[in-house]
């Protein structure tokens, strides 16, 4: 007999630079449905106070790698929502 998949997963969300300023925090723990994608994480962050200043489709990374918005999240993921990059 196999254990049932958990109904929700906990992930760690990071914000930086102008996005962290807009929302007033740099990190947040979120609990999500197990089938959620990065787009769903962005949607939840945009629903927070100050979050509507974020684009609908920002750059995102999961566990230090750029990913598309349809990327599925799994328990323990570190999800970073990245303002436009300006290095160099």
């Amino acid at each position, binding site marked *: 007999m196999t254990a049932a998949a958990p109904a929700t997963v906990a992930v760690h969300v990071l914000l*930086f*630079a102008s996005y962290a300023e807009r929302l007033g925090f740099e990190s947040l723990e979120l609990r999500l449905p197990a089938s959620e994608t990065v787009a769903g994480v962005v949607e939840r962050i945009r629903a927070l106070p100050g979050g509507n200043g974020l684009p609908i489709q*920002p750059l995102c990374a999961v566990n230090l790698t*750029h990913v598309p918005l349809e990327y599925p999240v799994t328990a323990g993921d570190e999800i*970073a929502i*990245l303002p436009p*990059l*300006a290095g*160099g």
Partner: protein
Amino acid sequence: MPVLTSTRIDVTALLGSVQSPARGGIASFVGVVRDHHGGRAVARLAYSAYAPMVEAECARIIFEAQRRWPVAVALRHRIGCLEVGDVAIVVAVGAAHRDAAFEACRFVVDEVKLRAPIWKQESYVDGGVGWVEPAAVEPRIPAESAR
């Protein structure tokens, strides 16, 4: 050596780190803080970064460069508060011949700007601060990201 540093970048040391008897050419790019942007006079700026991802992404960029060209690559990027004229980024590439050195150097600079999660906040001479936010560019998602 980590890519990010909060202290002055030693350009000469970085050039030396890619030099060897087998390499006949070293190409370099040195990015320096400019005194103007978007028509405003810039007094200084502050770089911030998602440091663990900068290190991971830059390691991937260097790996990709070394897979395409027979080169040695050294890369440093400054973070923290910088004044006009301070060196912000240095890319040094050593190769047996100049074509590979020039091409790989350009590749590394372009990819860092496109992929490394680094942000820049300018302080203006006439007061105020502003985030530099280039028009968002779709990042190229590496194929190995697909789960």
